[in-house]
């Protein structure tokens, strides 16, 4: 047994798999099934899922509808309430709240942000979006708190809750829009439920984590002073975990904001998300940017406010007078009442006049058009280089990429032999110099680049994935990986899954390299950090669709545009975590390095980066997650992977197709996440 384990984890297994891959490739004409998974072997899950769904609708549809009707009444109420407030009152309230919680800087920012929404003339729509968030956050917080507490109380429940939450966060929302629509009926409630499904998981996680990390002695002290279980929970454990729970609320709020546009795809919302969608449909860059900024600003203000609540010092206010204690409440109340009354005589305080609008969309559109017309040749060159030398080789392999048109020559048999010899030589050198792991990697990449990811035989691809999982995380990880690969194969989405891996893989690699470099620069030079921060904030809160349009206009429909859009979004965690990691390296370690006579360059490579690597790996993990999330959005500019399948399901009203593709993406995301986390944990231990 031990011998077998040793054999499995070592060089032999890899050598065998590589040899098998080569054998399958050499005989691939005879063994066509090994490259393209045969359709006859696919388990027809889609019809079952669809008829199962129909059964549920027929039998329980009425209950779901009753639930959503109730929710619809509440939603209408919140909406009317928010819309009844004049804009000037909202402006005053938000500013006072920002000042009370975080001082004049945030107050100024919030004031400008709210004023922006008024000035561009989409106030009602913005408030309708706010209504969605205002309603979904408290519900998500309550549900999330309850589930999180359950996960804390019972180990068994936690084991079921954890993967469910993973699934909810990784299955793209588009995949479950249709089932929600079929179950709950049409209307803004569908958007609300979709946003709940996405916003609950962070609350659950943070609640469980917070409660778990409460000091055991504190709990013991509480118990000794005679607290009942309920008292212990509400008076000791929850207050101690308060900070983590508040962080959960913050993340839940952000998640709810990120669903604003997706929720409007169903319709019935008449909010800013719908306006953005309409602008995107018409490819109006200026409009979609200005409207997307509304959502981004709202999210930024809310983020700062809720994050501030989470870190605020809890001050003792016993000795203050009533007026002192509630001074901000009193100011807010007076301002609100005063402005409401004033709005009666000065109507522009509640209805912003159309003539005062400033909406510079046309100018922005003209700017993009100018760039496109002016730089079309150099843009084309960038695209060609990326296509011929990076993307196509990985996707279809050098054997199909190299042609007189692309590389300037034909890939003759002599050249093919030369390529094989070069790869073998490289592998040999790597083995001698760096050991078998690097050699295996070199051989693998050599084969991959020759036939492309779509030409690799699936039996050995799946085998290698399982083997890798075994080496990283032992038997459990290998089992999980085998189950995941089985799902992708049996449901017949292997090809699309590999295309997703290809697009995500290149995007992650580039994001990690570029983002890591920027992160190092930001950690070393303060001005760089100051420039990068607002850009990162905007990229992260701006609705993802908006990012697409300028890329399409400049780089045209196709995978290159999709790749750039994915990078634009996935690069942010790489930058942030690298900066964070390097800044977190202890000054003593740096000092020690300096005393040993390290140059700044050595200091970076030998001291700072190795010490920061657990955090940087966490950033890589996040980059992978972000890339997979963006895959669905990027499908809007023409890809042919799982992301596209999700839309096909939504467009055809075919529940099964969409959900299988969605779960397929979740499977890839979860496996990548587990692997990365294990690696990062191992590194931290060393």
């Amino acid at each position: 047994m031990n011998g077998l384990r040793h054999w499995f984890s070592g060089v032999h297994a890899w050598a065998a798999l590589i040899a098998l891959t080569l054998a399958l490739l050499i005989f691939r004409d005879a063994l066509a099934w090994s490259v393209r998974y045969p359709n006859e072997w696919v388990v027809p899950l889609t019809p079952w899922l669809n008829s199962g769904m129909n059964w549920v609708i027929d039998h329980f549809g009425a209950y779901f509808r009753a639930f959503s009707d109730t929710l619809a009444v509440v939603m209408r109420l919140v909406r009317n309430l928010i819309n009844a407030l004049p804009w000037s009152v909202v402006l005053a309230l938000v500013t006072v709240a920002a000042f009370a919680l975080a001082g004049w800087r945030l107050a100024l920012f919030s004031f400008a942000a709210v004023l922006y929404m008024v000035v561009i003339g989409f106030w009602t729509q913005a408030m309708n979006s706010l209504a969605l968030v205002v309603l979904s956050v408290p519900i998500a917080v309550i549900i999330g708190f309850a589930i999180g507490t359950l996960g804390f109380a019972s180990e068994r429940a936690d084991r079921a809750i954890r993967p469910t939450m993973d699934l909810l966060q990784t299955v793209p929302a588009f995949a479950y829009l249709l089932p929600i629509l079929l179950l709950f009926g049409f209307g803004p409630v569908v958007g609300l439920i979709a946003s709940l499904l996405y916003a609950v998981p962070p609350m659950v996680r943070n609640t469980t984590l917070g409660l778990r990390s409460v000091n055991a002695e504190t709990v013991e002290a509480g118990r000794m002073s005679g607290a009942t279980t309920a008292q212990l929970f509400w008076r000791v454990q929850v207050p101690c975990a308060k900070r983590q729970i508040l962080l959960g609320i913050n993340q839940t709020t952000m998640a709810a904001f990120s669903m604003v546009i997706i929720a409007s795809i169903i319709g019935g919302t008449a909010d800013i998300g719908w306006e953005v969608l309409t602008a995107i449909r018409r490819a109006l860059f200026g409009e979609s940017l200005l409207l997307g900024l509304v959502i981004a600003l709202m999210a930024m203000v809310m983020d700062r406010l809720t994050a501030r609540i989470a870190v605020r010092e809890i001050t003792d206010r016993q000795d203050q007078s009533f007026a002192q204690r509630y001074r901000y409440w009193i100011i807010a109340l007076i301002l609100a009442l005063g402005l409401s009354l004033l709005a009666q005589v000065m109507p522009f305080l509640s209805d912003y006049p159309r003539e005062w609008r400033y909406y510079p969309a046309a100018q922005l559109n003209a700017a993009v058009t100018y760039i496109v017309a002016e730089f079309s040749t150099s843009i084309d060159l960038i695209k060609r280089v990326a296509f011929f030398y990076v993307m196509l080789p990985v996707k279809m392999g050098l054997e199909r990429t190299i042609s007189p048109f692309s590389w300037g020559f034909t890939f003759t048999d002599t050249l093919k032999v030369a390529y094989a010899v070069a790869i073998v030589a490289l592998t040999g050198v790597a083995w001698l110099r760096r050991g078998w792991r690097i050699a295996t990697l070199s051989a693998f990449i050599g084969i991959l680049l020759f036939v492309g990811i779509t030409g690799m035989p699936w039996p050995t691809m799946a085998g290698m994935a399982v083997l890798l999982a075994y080496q990283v995380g032992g038997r459990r990880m290998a089992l999980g990986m085998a189950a995941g690969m089985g799902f992708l194969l049996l449901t017949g989405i292997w090809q699309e899954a590999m295309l997703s891996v290809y697009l995500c893989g290149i995007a992650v690699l580039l994001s990690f390299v570029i983002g890591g470099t920027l992160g190092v620069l930001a950690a070393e030079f303060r001005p760089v950090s100051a420039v990068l921060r607002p850009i990162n904030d905007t990229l992260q809160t701006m609705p993802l669709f908006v990012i697409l349009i300028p890329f399409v206009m400049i780089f045209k429909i196709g995978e290159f545009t999709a790749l750039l859009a994915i990078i634009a979004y996935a690069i942010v965690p790489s930058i942030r975590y690298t900066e964070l990691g390097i800044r977190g390296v202890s000054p003593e370690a740096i000092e020690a390095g300096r005393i040993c006579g390290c140059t700044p360059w050595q200091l970076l490579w030998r001291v700072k980066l190795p010490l920061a690597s657990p955090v940087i790996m966490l950033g890589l993990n996040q980059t992978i997650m972000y890339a997979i999330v963006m895959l669905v959005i990027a499908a809007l500019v023409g890809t042919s992977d799982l992301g596209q399948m999700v839309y096909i399901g939504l467009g055809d009203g075919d529940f099964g197709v969409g959900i299988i593709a969605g779960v397929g993406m979740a499977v890839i995301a979860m496996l990548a996440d587990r692997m990365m986390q294990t690696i990062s944990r191992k590194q931290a231990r060393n």
Partner: protein
Amino acid sequence: MSNNSITIAAALGLAFAATSAQADTIRIPLNDWTGQNLTAQIAGKLLERIGHDVEYVTAGAVPQLAAIAQGSLHFQPEFWDNNVGDIYYDALDRGDIVLVGPLGIESSEGWIYPPYMEESCPGLPSYQALYDCAQAFAAADTFPNGRLITYPADWGTRSRDLVAQIDLPFQPVAGGSEGAMIAELRSAVASQQPILMMFWQPHWLFAEFDFNWVEFDEVDGTCDEGNQSRGNACGFNQANVGKLVNRDFQATWPDAYVLVEALQMDNASQNAMILQVDQDGMSVDEAAEGWLADNEAVWAPWVEAAMAAQD
């Protein structure tokens, strides 16, 4: 505190008043393009003239079908039956959605190109010319074949099938989304680059730019899309633009149903209004009112017929 509860009570009252008043409201979907919004507003304003309450609800193309079938929306005055999946035909079969008839808008679908392409490909607009000047339409990722941008993958594969059948040296590239397709057209026109794309009209885009259509061989009757070859290629079967109502619409609002049956719209009127909205910054509401003011002779008989059905 008391102030708050008064506000809440007032809002509650409002909300319930609003819900109860809705029982008889006819709900019309607003899709995300101007042409449909105009037809919806005109239909809604006419329904108001015969005494009904109307509410407009924003809705996506597939979700609206589920909504009409379930009865959350009641009347879609302009529905395009191309690019919809089984969800539409299933609902028609079950009778949950009723097709009242054509709206009168003549749609056309096909391949478009900007006029400057006729310089680099002189035989256009005939499709036969495309065989010889595929390279004029080529791009890095399709060379030596021409690049044809088709509908997004989830709208079906008709262009791809046609290219394969008539053996055209073009590579179809899926458009991804309407926004992406339009962005591509805008940028191609801005830099005078070659482009060939599957598109449809009426569409507001034709109010903004000039495009020509690739012409296929003439056929008698409908085009058999699945059976074409070079020299015998009819191109595409054209979509129908119809009026949809919910299953219970006729029973609930018999007079409104008469109006729905009579309602007609033509391309010229709609294009003129689209131009007013998308180019001249007029609101959809104003444009619809403008049409009603100028065309009383057209719609007066519809309203009369509906009023007659009320007694």
